[in-house]
């Protein structure tokens, strides 16, 4: 007798956590909306000329605060620059700095977190105190000193901001990595691999890492959103991108002084920045929900 509550065919293939998670994600509207938005922003960052043919550096004072016209959908700002072109081109620097900084933080966090979790003992104690020290400096205060120190005279500040953000934000990645490695280390399959004679490097990268990777990826997505916002904040304060570099933070800082007269140059870069951060945070949230078995 067949049980009527069971479907006619049961999928008996073994299912992995990531397979389950992908199944969840495929049916999540938030996932598709946020990755669509993220893709659009990536497209804007790497091919800005698809969206606008105007030169963002072409500023003429006679066009100050001129309304929207032709290609300049959002009008012109205080300096007479095309707000639309500058907002589109601003995506490049923001994303580029955000991606590189997050990658740097991820690499540092991955290695420190794995080392602390795998070796434990003194290595763990030293690395954990190191994390405490970095967390003992309020983020923006550290970033202000760091970025000011790293940027040389006359450069556009991209390297300085990337290094600053990377070196100050790896702690969350390291903590997550450490705790998932500690959890994975005690599993039977790791003990089995060790008994078969696997080297520590093989154990770490072949056996422990793949199973500890999901929470790490989530932290990376959230960190990307946070780092893009942090770049804008540093640029806003004048220790981020500077000179001729186009950045949403610089645009907002400039437009904020004249918001009473001309709000459009303030509103548009703000909207794009918020949408970008939202896209990555939503993506991180959706992926976390999919990977967290406790929520199922």
């Amino acid at each position, binding site marked *: 007798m067949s049980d009527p509550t069971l479907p006619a065919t049961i999928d008996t293939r073994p299912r992995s956590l990531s397979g389950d998670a992908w199944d969840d994600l495929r049916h999540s509207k938030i996932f598709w909306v946020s990755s669509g938005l993220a893709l659009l922003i990536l497209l804007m960052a790497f091919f800005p000329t698809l969206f606008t043919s105007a030169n963002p550096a072409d500023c003429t004072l006679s066009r100050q605060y001129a309304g929207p016209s032709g290609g300049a959908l959002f009008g012109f700002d205080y300096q007479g620059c095309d707000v639309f072109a500058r907002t589109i081109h601003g995506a490049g620097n923001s994303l580029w700095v955000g991606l590189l900084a997050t990658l740097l933080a991820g690499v540092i966090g991955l290695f420190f977190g794995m080392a602390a979790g795998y070796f434990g003992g003194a290595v763990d104690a030293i690395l954990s105190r190191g994390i*405490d020290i970095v967390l003992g400096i309020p983020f923006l205060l550290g970033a202000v000193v760091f970025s000011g120190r790293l940027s040389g005279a006359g450069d556009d500040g991209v390297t300085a901001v990337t290094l600053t953000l990377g070196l100050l934000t790896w702690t969350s990645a390291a903590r997550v990595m450490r705790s998932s490695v500690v959890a994975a280390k005690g599993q039977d399959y790791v003990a089995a691999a060790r008994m078969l004679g696997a080297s520590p490097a093989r154990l770490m990268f072949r056996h422990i890492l793949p199973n500890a990777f999901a929470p790490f990826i989530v932290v990376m997505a959230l960190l990307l959103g946070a780092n893009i*916002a942090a770049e804008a904040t540093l640029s806003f304060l004048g*220790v981020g991108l500077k000179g001729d570099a186009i950045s949403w933070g610089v645009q907002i800082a400039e437009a904020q002084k004249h*918001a009473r007269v001309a709000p459009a140059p303030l509103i548009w870069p703000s909207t794009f920045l918020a949408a970008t*951060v939202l896209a990555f945070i*939503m993506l991180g949230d959706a992926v976390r929900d999919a990977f967290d078995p406790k929520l199922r």
Partner: protein
Amino acid sequence: MFRYIVRRLLQMILTFFGATFVVFALMFANQDDPVQALAGEKPVSASLREALTERYHLDEGLLSQYWYYMSNLLTGDLGESISGREIGTLLEDSWPVTVRLSLMALVIAAALALGAGVWSAIRRGSVFDNGILAFTLLLLALPIVVLAPVAQWIFGMELGWFPATASRNASFYALLLPALVLATTVVATQLRVTRTSVAENLRADYVRTARAKGLAPRRVIWVHVLRNSLIPLVTLIGVDLGVLMSGALVTEGVFNIPGVGSKLAQGIRTEDGPMVVGFVSVLVIVFLVMNLVVDLLYAALDPRIRYE
């Protein structure tokens, strides 16, 4: 409790020296010309060069420089800024309004987080709960560089509900909009943490026992559940103090509040190295001490931690 305090103090001392050394080394170590680095890109006169060298002992080794820097810092001697004003006086003038602003932001955030978080946890999955989750997501996505200028433009200028700027002796009302803006930097995480921990505690055995004894639902939630749910919130508030300091840097600048944040932002703009280092060092110390206080509070709240 005593052993816990001693252990936390030892940990803090380590973090304290580590963090101040990092800030110090960033400013002074491995510079081609440390005096120039302190003065930014401005030309340095011979007398200023001499004064800075003497002040920071730049002609000695790094460790002895650090020693002088720390002993000056701990005795409250912060020296002079490049423009020749006492950094200690600058700090003294600017801290009261910053403390008021941050306290207002903290109280607003914690009250919202508690109220909405508890309600959300009780009505898990309801329209209200989902609305709150969507709202916190939106807040997390709005960086303070977006929120502060836009809020100032909408509520301060267009609608005119609040003053667009605030002075040193600003009234409660004048500080309300900046405080709300500042509160948004911490309220989302606080709310989510409260919601999660209340929801978890609602399922605990002691809640079932309390209900079975016939206690009023209100008392079960606000006395039994809340005390246990406050623990993660209190820890988070310690971390949030650092977030508030970062937020104040932007908020005070935008709303023209002459507090610590805008003074520091001004120091950054005018490339005043001594002022930036002085302010940042003091803020790092305040942050670490406040975190120690929070940790002790946390032990008072949860006896399990004391006997660890």
